[in-house]
């Protein structure tokens, strides 16, 4: 019944046999044990489960694990490098872009994609592209500021 899958998460290779119906987010959380990726709504509205799959921001509650076979995945745990925060993580800290912290991993992963698309985004662009991520604590004000801060502090693209 179970199906073998192999994928690279945050630079590390994982191989498991999983139920074909196992959602990718449950694989990441329960099987691999990376619990920074959260489940908030089950219907792809809240974005708490956002990860990067082959360079694209994706809601991991919307995909089966078997569909991600062979993929390269980054989760929130893979954003800081060598003990140094990613500028977006730093921005969320500097600008108080989080309160309870539950939506934060998804927000940060989405923000990374926004800044890839728009290295110097306007407030309107940020707000529009955050539409798929819900936060109940911050009213978004400081999340926007955090992403603006990150945009100013991102290293120049090589």
């Amino acid at each position, binding site marked *: 019944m179970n199906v073998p899958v192999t994928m690279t998460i945050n630079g590390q290779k994982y191989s498991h046999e999983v139920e074909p119906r196992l959602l990718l987010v449950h694989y990441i959380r329960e099987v691999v044990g990376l619990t*920074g990726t959260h489940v908030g709504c089950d219907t792809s509205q809240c974005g708490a489960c956002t990860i990067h799959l082959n360079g694209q921001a994706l809601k991991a509650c919307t995909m089966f694990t078997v569909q991600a076979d062979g993929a390269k995945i980054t989760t929130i745990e893979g954003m800081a490098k060598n003990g140094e925060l990613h500028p977006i993580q730093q921005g969320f800290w500097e600008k108080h872009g*989080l309160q309870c*912290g539950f939506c934060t991993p998804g927000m940060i992963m989405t923000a990374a994609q926004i800044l890839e698309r728009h290295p110097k985004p306007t*407030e309107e662009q940020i707000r529009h592209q955050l539409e798929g991520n*819900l936060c*109940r604590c911050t*009213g978004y004000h400081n999340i*926007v500021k955090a992403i603006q801060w990150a945009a100013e502090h991102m290293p120049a693209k090589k």
Partner: protein
Amino acid sequence: MATVTEGRLFGKSIKRREDPRFITGRGTYVDDVKLPGMTYAAFVRSPHAHARIKAIDAARARKVPGVIAVYTSQEIKVGGLPCGWMLPGIKVPTRPVLAQGKARYVGEPVAIVIGETPYAAKDGAEAVSVTYEALQGVSDGKKAHQKGAPQLFDEIPSNQCFYWTIGDKAAAEAAFKSAATVVSQPLLNQRLIPNAIEPRACVASHSPATDELTLWVTSQNPHVHRLLMAAFVLAIPETKMRVIAPDVGGGFGSKIFVYNEEVAVSWASRTLKRPVKWTAERRESFLNDAHGRDHVTEAEMAFSREGQITGLRVKTHANLGAYLSTFAPLIPSYLYGPLLSGVYKIPAIFCEVWGMLSNTAPVDAYRGAGRPEATFLLERVMDRAARQLRLDPAELRRKNFIPAFTGGTPYQTPVAFAYDSGDYEPALRRALELSGYEQVRREQTAARQKGRYLGIGVTTYIEACGPAPSAVAGALGAGAGLWESGQVRVDPTGTVTVFTGSHSHGQGHETTFAQIVADELGIPMEQIEVVHGDTARIPFGMGTYGSRSACVGGSAIVKCLDKIKEKGRKIAAHLLEAGEQDLVFQGGTWSVKGSPDKKKAWGEVALMAYLAHNIPQGMEPGLEATSFYDPVNFTFPFGAHVAVVEVDAETGAVTILKYVAVDDVGRVINPMIVDGMVHGGIAQGVGQALWEHGIYTDDGQLLSGTMMDYAMPKADSLPSYVTDRTVTPSPINPLGFKGAGETGTIASTPTIANAVMDALEPFGVRHLDMPLTPGKIWKAVAAAKKK
């Protein structure tokens, strides 16, 4: 990170100490807890709003691979879920953990299935077959009162749990008799669904070795959970139960209460001798988290010829849902009626509330809890009055303000509350200034000429935080005290652990409480650890709700610090062979006045307290203090909010052009954190004004049961906010806090509603019920154009 060398931390926007774990994905929320041998729970829920349960057949479910057990109310024989607030004459329906005989709302748990994996448990739940006999249901609190309405409980006629009044009926009647103008307005305060982004969850683990039950649960108040569950539901000693609320992903009230699921899961763990985990799907949050608001109200206000308010009469049907949630009766009574004086001098008020059962999810405290309902009522009626009296809405408010009272003498309202301190005009003046009120009014006039419809909304509000004192609460029906505990433990090396009964689920206590301690003891924040959320570590605690953490929980910590400093001074004086009164304590050092070289550092005193080699005779060794702080009164923050919106008359769409919030929350520990709470509160209140609505069909089917159907506030439909503060310290607690967690939600709903109605003024539309969706506005405009 800031240290003491930078001076006092009070009032500084220190970056949060809890953030590094959250931004790196290392928070520990309940669903992240993993235990060996874990099993998983899923619930079978009623698809009917009202039905007799004829039979439950779990035979097929028990055969599903991976299913361990299925339990119904036949097996789980524990006490019902308690209601923690009794009003005079209240009828409290029995609320079983799993539906017994009848299901009374869609989503009511009927059976629990335990599986080896979450998926197996869900498969099992699908395979449980329940035979229902559907009954007529009723979802509207007022219709539930009508003759012939479906009855939820035989023993509660007309579905009425309570009838409650406050104020002086005769005085109010007299005021209306002699009024020059009467403004009447029926109002709906629609049902909201809290939707903290972390769904509720619990993990129960019973140790056969110690007979101790440990429950990790998404709770705003772990001790209250333990008390209610141990004493009233599970009937086990409190000593045999430990409740841990680790990182909690937002609460907004919905995580105060004791719910069916955590009781069933705890019982199952004790029975199976294995850990059991349950995490709500969002659909389950919609169905079974306690909802908020849901009032049907008739309000009328009497005015003198000069535009002074002379009286207010209110009749409210409060929909409480199918059962009484933990604090349900409190919300539409004592947290509602006493707020009806607002910031205004109102000589006579009379308010009647009918607490009604209906075939809907239970309703309880949701951010603001009663105060938003009262404020929406007052502020909508004030706006209607301004239009009727042809006065500027800001001017009408100013005219009726209670004059400043900041000298310590409280202001007694006609509805029980004695406000601690207030100075309302400066906040309004500042909000008008920041919004460019006069200028925007001119723009509004000019825009109307061009067929653009701008609206300006003004709200001035009062809020009541830190419900208190315990003795009064007890006399009014509380099943709990309303004090808070704190404990400060100094280690021999001088590091300090603060144990607080408050609980942070986004509020940032690990930072703000440490700021207070760092200042008071003169030591760096790095030496201070703040612990919350674990009944095994904290003496007792009432938790966090009602914006009480700083004013009640923070004050308890301050009381501890006083005791610590007093004992430290005695030890330092002894070591320095000086009189206690001759010592100065500054920057973490006690020194002798006039001889600054004669000194003892914090660390030396802490160490000596534990070495006890040389402490005053008769003094106990050690350096720790516990305080239980019971405030003498609520605190009363206030403020003024102004919004500018544009309504597109062609589509009915509302755009918020500007939002200004000027709040007075007393003294502020960390402005960044307070601003953040105000921002979030505004968004939630705007959500109610424009989008959010928990909609049931007349017979009790929930239509807005997922985030696809329930419109949550999103980044692209909100503006950035302008925030500012006036500072009127509260005289009732040591540091002058008033409370900041709910002001945004309380003020923003009427502010936006007033702004939209102001924009629709040219169409002669006087009032629309929330949420003010494009469809509703478009219909109103279209109807007005036809006239």
